[in-house]
């Protein structure tokens, strides 16, 4: 699924975005994590024929992208990559659900089409929320937030190590894949037999690296416990305002179909 160098670079770039200094970047990560979760829950709680009521939720990614100074094209590209699976399942809807819900002129619109579009919008909204969360918070900060929200420390440490070594190991993987590719002369992929040995080598190197890291940890007095450093993040008034503001907006938008109201006003006042 991941194309060799591309996804790795992508990864690095997303990580770099988190180093920017904007008002949303500076917020306590807990506020952002909780707001994002709330956003996703509100979005997916719409029933399957809903389209218009979901649209106002776009305001959240739009505002964060703007305030967080995130590159629009890049975020969009990342979202487009993940849509296919949801869409593939969604595309079955028009086949199984042919109930006519709407007519435009003589054209029957089946419920399946509507729910399929609904799935598409959900995918865009939820995926953008997740990616933007990382882009304005950074992975280590997210882990820290989750830890403060009672995630077990073992798991938090696991996430940090995983994250730290993704860069090192994917780099190793890329170089190995590259060395192989240069000697295969345009043949696609490689045979499954060679794959075993190639990945085996990679695994051996990984294992040895883990042994060296452990050595380095012991050399610095590691005794089974990772002590976290003091961090100045605190949950202040700005965070409350951010969370409170967005969450109430989400709830309002969830309860009232804003476009419907807006459109109603519009159709009603335009004779």
């Amino acid at each position, binding site marked *: 699924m991941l194309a060799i160098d591309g996804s790795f670079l992508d990864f690095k770039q997303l990580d770099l975005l988190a180093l920017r*200094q904007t008002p949303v970047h500076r917020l306590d990560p807990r506020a952002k994590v909780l707001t994002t*979760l709330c956003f996703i829950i509100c979005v*997916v709680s719409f029933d399957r024929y809903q389209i218009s009521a979901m649209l106002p939720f776009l*305001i959240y990614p739009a*505002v964060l992208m703007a305030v967080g100074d995130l590159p629009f094209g890049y975020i969009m590209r990342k979202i487009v990559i993940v849509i296919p699976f949801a869409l593939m399942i969604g595309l079955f809807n028009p086949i199984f659900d042919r109930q006519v819900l709407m*007519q435009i002129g003589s054209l029957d619109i089946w419920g399946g089409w509507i729910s399929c579009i609904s799935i598409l919008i959900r995918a865009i909204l939820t995926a953008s929320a997740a990616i933007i969360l990382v882009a304005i918070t950074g992975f280590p900060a997210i882990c820290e937030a989750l830890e403060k929200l009672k995630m077990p420390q073992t798991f938090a440490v696991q996430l940090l190590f995983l994250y730290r070594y993704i860069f090192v190991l994917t780099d190793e993987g890329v170089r190995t894949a590259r060395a192989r590719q240069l000697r295969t002369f345009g043949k696609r992929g490689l045979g499954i037999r060679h794959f075993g040995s190639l990945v085996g080598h990679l695994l051996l190197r990984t294992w040895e690296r883990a042994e060296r890291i452990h050595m380095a940890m012991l050399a610095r007095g590691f005794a089974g416990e990772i002590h976290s450093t003091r961090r100045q993040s605190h949950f202040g008034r700005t965070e409350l305002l951010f969370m409170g503001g967005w969450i109430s907006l989400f709830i309002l938008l969830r309860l009232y179909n804003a*476009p*419907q109201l807006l459109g109603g006003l519009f159709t*009603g006042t335009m004779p």
Partner: protein
Amino acid sequence: MHMADALVSPAVGGAFWAVAAGTIAYCSSRVRKDLDDRKVPLMGVLGAFVFAAQMINFTIPATGSSGHLGGGLLLAILLGPAAAYLTIASVLMVQALFFADGGLLALGCNMFNLGVFPAFIAYPFIYKKLVGREPRQARMVTASIIAAVVALQFGSLGVVLQTVASGVSVLPFNAFLLLMQPIHLGIGVVEGVVTALVVSFIYQARPDILENVLQEKPLGNMPTKSLLAVFLIATVLIGGVLSWFASENPDGLEWSIAKITGSAELPETEYMEHTKLANLQEKTSILPGYALPEENGHSQDAARTATDKRVGTSLSGIIGGTLTLVICTVIGVLLKRRNSANPQQAK
């Protein structure tokens, strides 16, 4: 195959979040008790290894398509169940955040499908049993393939049940099952073969790596049993209830979120929304009840009625939706411009 946020309902997503979080807590305490602090970097680095390995594709014989390592079973073989589950869970979390692969709400579902089955079912009950105390290469190969197939069958069954239970997709249970299980049979065999190849490679190069885990006592069979019972019960309950719903509504049509959650939350909000709207429309709209199809409007179902009502307001929905999009974009652009005009904020 990862379950996606777009297909999951809050109830299903939340339930599996709870299960996954509970399992994480359980496994974390097990790994801590294990007192083998070598595992701290090892788990992390192996998680990263899964990403690295997934970047390397191979050609699946006779098909011409390509695949890559999934890694769940391999991790279980290398680390034992509890550490493997934490590792898989962490991999899924990074995928959800960085690649939006799966999504945050569906994360619990994915941890369940891709973590619990290989670590707590396929590994202890199939792989370990088949390999026995003394690993031998031929046995490890067979055991890996069978274990991987089983893990993936369970996993894809999980995806089917969760999707159908969420009711966002209308794919009928049977059709979905017929679609997913055979595909995952293939994927499972491939995963098994790849795992077997890697495991035999490691067996030749560093047999100690594999023996350590097999000999390992605290993470072996015994303590996982109680946990397994919980999982089995949870699976049977969730699976049973959901598939009952699914077969009850074979075409999945009248089957809405309201029914699954059993709560009045959704219909109520819809009701509020529609009375308000109706009032508004009566006063303002010149197109009341636009385009209401009558031919199958005989359903008594509450959700159905709500649907019909909604349809009546679709024109204003379309207009309002377009306006909303425009407004969101404009706000975004305006904020962005102000932001980039402020030089010390842009880095």
